[in-house]
């Protein structure tokens, strides 16, 4: 799908990308302790004896974290390993109280799966690429060091210590920054649909280690670098862009790529070496003797499967096939779970208020949401998450259009008033006298006057310049202050013009 190439002095280079995404599992308690996981609490206020690695403390697995990871695995069509095991990854750092991270190296919870991505926003059904997921394993997060609290010392905040993470490891299947961006967005979308991670990259709930290598098309894989802890889709793409070009420069000037860990600097958009392979930690992985192997039964996996919601791809197909929406609209409405949820409430309420089937009002609701409401929200600096208008209130507005109470153009005014005042659509229409009229006498009177005032145009129209019909409609609507029913106006005008 992507033919992204780096144009080097010696020819075209292909970029090979694999991502390891760390996603914080949504749960009330940490992976191996009962401490809370709320973001933004006072430093060291959410630390149990286990998280602080006090002598003699032992980990006890939080089953909810496992359930969420299994649900995530099922959502990407992955195999679930009913026998998995936790290993210790040993290294010293001040944010790692135990001196090891409990992770899963040898026997991860989730095996191979895949995520389908599309680069074509206009038609998400076209140009679909399947990105393999190698595995998902569950592990503990570390704490956080604060270097700006004291002139010579660093402070340690252990609130994050022990929080459950999923590490979602892709295969090296991506070939461009855009594909990597689409992968992260799609993965984020799935996690949020499933509810296993809030996907909040600003708060660190999701971050990616970006593996990049380059090669001449058709060559063997090149040596890769790993850029750690990149925390936005934009930065993931920037990392790849920079890293791929840097590697091509190195290779073309006769150098070799060092297998190393790098850091991305958001201020400069560049990466720099953090440590080389020679300095790499020897993590001395071994099975954690404090924990038994994790054995899941079929019932657990099936219950996890049954609890999955409709996922974005399935929802998009349904919107297209059952609701008759365009692939573009279906794509927009299903990309984020909140948008889909909002849309579905709007759809149900609109159909109910208008006394019609959902598929009858789906296009109208979809068009209004995408072309009117998103723009309106944007103008007032809001989004669906904090929309001042509920889906239910919006449905009332749409129903007023559907039943002919107001026209589409009046509806725009009503929407603005709703955003301004927070009042319901019906209230505004009544108060402002915006109800559209189908009163044929009143409309006929206006038409008669317009035809008299514009006798020359009537002549031209009758002479064959039929495009002028729109002019007469416009004039009539204007004279009626937009409140005339457009259907009725059309009908009466046609009659009057013979």
């Amino acid at each position, binding site marked *: 799908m992507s033919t992204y190439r780096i144009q080097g002095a010696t020819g075209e280079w292909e970029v090979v990308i694999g991502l390891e995404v760390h996603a914080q599992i949504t749960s009330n308690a940490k992976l191996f302790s009962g401490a809370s996981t709320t973001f933004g609490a006072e430093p060291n206020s959410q630390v149990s*004896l286990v998280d*602080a*690695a*006090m*002598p*003699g*403390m*032992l*980990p*006890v*697995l939080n089953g909810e974290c496992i359930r969420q990871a299994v649900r995530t695995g099922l959502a990407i069509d992955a195999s679930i390993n009913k026998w998995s095991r936790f290993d*210790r990854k*040993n290294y*010293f*750092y*001040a944010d790692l*109280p*135990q*001196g*090891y991270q409990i992770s899963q190296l040898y026997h991860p919870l989730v095996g191979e799966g895949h995520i389908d991505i599309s680069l074509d926003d206009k038609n998400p059904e076209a140009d679909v690429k399947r990105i393999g997921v190698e595995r998902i394993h569950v592990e503990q997060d570390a704490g956080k060091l604060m270097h700006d609290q004291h002139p010579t010392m*660093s402070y*340690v905040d252990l609130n994050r210590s022990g929080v459950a993470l999923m590490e979602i490891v892709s295969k090296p299947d991506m070939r461009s920054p855009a594909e990597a961006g689409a992968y992260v967005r799609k993965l984020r979308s799935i996690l949020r649909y499933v509810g296993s991670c809030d996907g909040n990259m600003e708060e660190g709930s999701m971050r990616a280690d970006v593996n990049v290598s380059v090669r001449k098309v058709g060559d063997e894989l090149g040596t890769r670098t790993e850029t750690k802890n990149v925390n936005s889709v934009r930065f993931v793409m920037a990392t790849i862009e920079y890293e791929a070009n840097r590697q091509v420069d190195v290779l073309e000037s006769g150098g070799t790529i060092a297998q190393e860990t790098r850091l991305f600097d958001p201020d400069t958009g560049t990466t720099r070496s953090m440590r080389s392979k020679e300095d790499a930690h*020897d993590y*001395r*992985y*071994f099975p954690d*003797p*404090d*924990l*038994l192997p994790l054995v899941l039964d079929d019932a657990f996996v099936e219950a996890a499967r049954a609890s999955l919601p409709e996922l974005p791809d399935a929802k998009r197909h349904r919107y297209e096939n059952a609701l008759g929406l365009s692939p573009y609209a279906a794509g927009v409405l299903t990309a984020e779970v909140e948008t889909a949820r909002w849309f579905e409430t709007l759809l149900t309420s609109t159909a109910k208020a208008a006394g019609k089937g959902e598929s009858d009002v789906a296009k109208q609701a979809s068009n209004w949401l995408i072309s009117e409401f998103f723009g309106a929200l944007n103008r007032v600096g809001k989004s669906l998450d904090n929309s001042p208008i509920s889906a239910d209130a919006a449905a009332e507005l749409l129903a007023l259009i559907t039943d002919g109470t107001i026209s589409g153009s009046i509806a725009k005014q009503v929407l603005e008033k709703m955003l301004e005042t927070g009042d319901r659509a019906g209230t505004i229409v009544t108060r402002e006298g915006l109800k559209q009229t189908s009163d044929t006498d009143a409309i006929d009177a206006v038409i008669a006057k317009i035809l008299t005032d514009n006798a020359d145009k009537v002549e031209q129209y009758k002479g064959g310049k039929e495009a002028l019909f729109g002019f007469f409609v416009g004039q009539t609507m204007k004279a009626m202050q937009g409140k005339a029913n457009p259907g009725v106006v059309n009908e009466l005008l046609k009659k009057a013009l013979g």
Partner: protein
Amino acid sequence: MSDVTELGVAAIRDGVAKGEFTAVEVAQGFNANVAAAQIALNAFIVATPEAALGAAQKVDEARAAGQPLGKMAGVPIGMKDLFATKGVQTTAASHILEGFTPQYESSVSQKLWDAGAGMLGKLNLDQFAMGSSNETSYFGNVISPWKRKDGGNAAMAPGGSSGGSSAAVAARLCPAATGTDTGGSIRQPAAFTGISGIKPTYGRCSRWGIVAFASSLDQAGPMARDVRDCAIMLEVMSGFDPKDSTSLDLPVPAWEAALSGDMRGKKVGIPREYRVDGLDGDVAKSWDQGIAWLKDAGAEIVDISLPHTKYALPAYYIIAPAEASSNLARYDGVRYGLRDLPDGAGLQDMYAATRSAGFGAEVKRRILIGTYVLSAGYYDAYYTQAQKVRTLIARDFDEAFRLCDVILAPTTPTASFGLGEMVSDPLAMYLNDVFAVPASLAGLPAMSVPAGLNREGLPLGLQIIGKAFDEQGVLNAGLAIESRAGFTAKPERWW
């Protein structure tokens, strides 16, 4: 009233319950013995006479009020300083934890207090439970109350790592004490000091709140004067703990009530591989005597083979240090315990300075061994291989237990040795646990009971190894030996 400190757990429990003496009198008697022996024996790192008295007062008040009494009501005990005790310094006999006072109580010690026991103090041990002679403690050697009958006055090893526990029970400083056993640390010191001690099936006693040495091997257990006392105390210490993922979710049997030395219908296995070259003559003799006693109790004696025995010690000295190297990584000077921060030091310097100063030589040796065997390129050759050996050793026992109900063997290849005689040769020291380690690797219940004295007048122990979960079978065989051995010897008081 005779000296209450000559009494064991059952006698104290029953005497207090019947009102023959008060729990406070018992606590006072043992508190006095602890204080009198401290300088000579160094069995305690910290004495807590007020804690013992406080618990005793509560028991006396409860009895006066007619309330039901716990299973160990009025029994003061020694607590190995590997168990976290709330508000009382817990050091694992290390400098790195010197002054560390937990805000929590280990599950096992809590069960003991809930049963009416009181704490006489925190018992000395080998540092982080690593050692077989109690010579690795930062707080100085424990001296065994026993002396060789050779006219000399050499200070003898009380065994290790539960050397404070063994010395204190043998010297009547406490009627019973907690121990922990990773590769013989209850059984070997019990054998060296003429007392009984049982390591239950792995998972019987919660590890929560016990400073970890090697998680897959560590088990707590009681050390006391006789088999009945061990049964009583083990019942209190055992039980499922949701805070320990390796805890056994099984009911605790009424071991004391089911004690019986009648071995009719039981088969006792004698492992031929334990007849090692150079087995001490007195030890071999005591083993034969043990066989005769169990035969006398009605048991049938069968020869068995545990073919992988010779690989047990090497495997143990890979697995235990591997786990220890990781378990001890938390002692880094960041959050608690010792911090050595030289001027201008960075984080790595702080780690190095703190751990260099905080750990003793034997602990460092095992951290180095453990780090090495887990390193990339060596992991498969050492750790993976050792785990395979461990599986084979467990299989040996499975096969053997098709032919017998319990296994009888010596606890140790020799009796106690003089302090300082072995420290220069770690391998010789490690060999002292050669008979104890296989049961640890297999997670099986195993007990040492006193069998008699050797030609030097030093105690020898016999070890009974049972099937998983069959502590009863082990205790019963122990009782059969105990009642025939008639072991009444005790160290002459020289302190």
